[in-house]
């Protein structure tokens, strides 16, 4: 029932959830030893969450898809402002280095693939071009490395977030 998260400021969080009458009893503590807290979570018929802590209830909207958790709150304060997307962590630790997935920023059609497996690429080197709604978007290498896998081909339709190229980190590759 315990899960570890990386928060937006990259600190580590431990979260615990226990079923409870009327909802879910939650508690968490930051890794730096902060006091843990308890929250009672209730779900409204429209899917909104109502999170009660210390006698005060705050609404929050949460959605989940294959790749992300989306969270929004009206509470425009210190806590959560606007809509935030938490992405699934995809880093795989191999023996030869760290894999980096280069993902399509949008659902669209692959119009060009500029690399193939094994290529050594510079940071910012164009890898793939994706087109949607008449607009082309060039995917570039986030850092220097080696192409481990090309998971698409020209003409193919791809979903937003789909991994198109896997890179092996240059530091690890050399």
């Amino acid at each position: 029932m315990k899960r570890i998260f990386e928060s937006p400021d990259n600190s580590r969080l431990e979260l615990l959830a226990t079923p409870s009458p009327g909802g879910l009893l939650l508690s968490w503590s930051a890794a730096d030893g902060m006091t843990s807290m308890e929250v009672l979570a209730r779900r409204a018929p429209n899917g909104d969450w109502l999170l009660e802590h210390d006698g005060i209830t705050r609404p929050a909207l949460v959605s989940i898809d294959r790749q992300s958790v989306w969270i929004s709150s009206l509470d425009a304060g210190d806590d959560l402002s606007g809509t935030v997307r938490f992405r699934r962590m995809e880093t795989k630790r191999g023996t030869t280095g760290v894999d980096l997935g280069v993902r399509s920023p949008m659902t669209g059609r692959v119009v060009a693939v500029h690399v193939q497996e094994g290529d050594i690429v510079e940071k910012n080197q164009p890898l793939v071009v994706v087109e949607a709604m008449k607009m082309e978007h060039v995917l570039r290498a986030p850092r220097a490395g080696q192409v481990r896998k090309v998971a698409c081909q020209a003409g193919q339709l791809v979903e937003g977030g789909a991994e198109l190229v896997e890179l092996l980190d240059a530091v690890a590759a050399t």
Partner: protein
Amino acid sequence: MQKVLIANRGEIAVRIARGCRVLGMRAVAVYSEADALARHVRAADEAVCVGPAESALSYLNVAAILAAAKRTGADAIHPGYGFLSENVDFMRAVVAAGLTWIGPPADAIAPIQSKTSAKAVAQAAGVPTAPSAILDDLSDAGIEKAAAFVGFPLLVKPQDGGGGKGMQRVDRMADLRTAVDTARRIAKSAFGSDKLFIERYVEDARHVEVQVLGDTHGTTVHCFERECSVQRRHQKVIEESPCNVLTAVEREAICESGRAFAAQVGYVGAGTVEFLFDPQRREHYFLEMNTRLQVEHPVSETVIGVDLVVAQLRIARGEKLQDILAGGVTQRGHAIEVRVYAEDPANGYAPQAGTLLRVRWPDAPFVRVDAGFESGDAVPMFYDPMLAKIIAWGRDREEARHRLMAALRETVVHGVVTNVPMLLALLAEPAYVASEVHTGWLDKQYGNEAPGMGSASGLTAMAALAAAGQGGPLASNGAAHAAIQAGPATSDPWTALAGWRAGGAA
């Protein structure tokens, strides 16, 4: 007119259906295969599939659209904006099929479809135009002579283009040759014609446009102006009415110019005459006329209290403007509209397609939302990524601005990244607050990157993230769920959340 076919999709198709109902008319939607379950289909009385996802085969498919009208017994066609709305051949085909065209007569607008001939019409109507010259002599001497007449800085523009494509600013004679050659190449490939003209470039120009209405009895009126200076690469992002840099005298002059232009062409229906306003010289120059309902028509509707779609329908069935606008038209208060796009401003404004896991549009007095999507709907990759327009009214511009920001803070879109955070940031920019913007301002301000999503930390965010694990199998369905009796969880509530980390933009 009993039944109107709406040859469009998204928010404008929904909005036109609402207008039809006010007059007791039925609304027929058309849809592509990608839009079979779309909101504009659900909002119509009847709907007909007109072809596959690609617009060219569906929403631009004249034969299929006319067949849909025949099948459903529709007796009129409203084109909305975009798609076939300014297509003279379509207008003629609609009329030839015995249907009422809800828009201007083809003969009225054919002469103003080219920028240069429209400019000639403006001059005939006594409407000011920016100094310009047609580049018919493309020799060095020819273009230099034309440029000397117009003066620098100037713009090189395709005669038959639009959307700013091929348009180039030139500051001195030395750069003119290259610019002309480039513009010809782009114009040829984009518009099939390499004819160019040059025009004086207005520094810090503001985009001011005048809403006009004409009836079939020879009356033409203006419905005041809108300002749309906040643009990203010539795409309007924020629109408002009135334009609050105009004096009363300037407003009267520009609105009368708009009316005069429309009257000159014998315009019928709703249209918009666009001008550049030079804030230094305090002059306005005719730009072009849009012969359709505009995306930003709600800011006018809100301020003048006229339902422009209802007005279009009543004009089309032969009513007089003196009845439709009985009591006259005045401006009250201020309205601002933002366009909510499925795009990622922090990532080169890449358009986003996908499923809207959850949408909550704002809902407040004096706030209007014209939306084409709701929770669960798919945003196909084939069409314009505008999800909705949010319009706020206030007694003055500041009240409207604050109300719009409150509305945007309430707006939630999960499933695709939107420009909502950027819109909020824009509305708070000191230059915007002071109304010191011009058509190039946004591109200068945000270039190719702009504020992305919000940030999260602390109790509410963590609790919400944790609660997500509680969604269980329901959560993967992707829309609003019924969980009236959400009993205690029987399985590990964290299963769905293994290995997530926080991250901003895609």
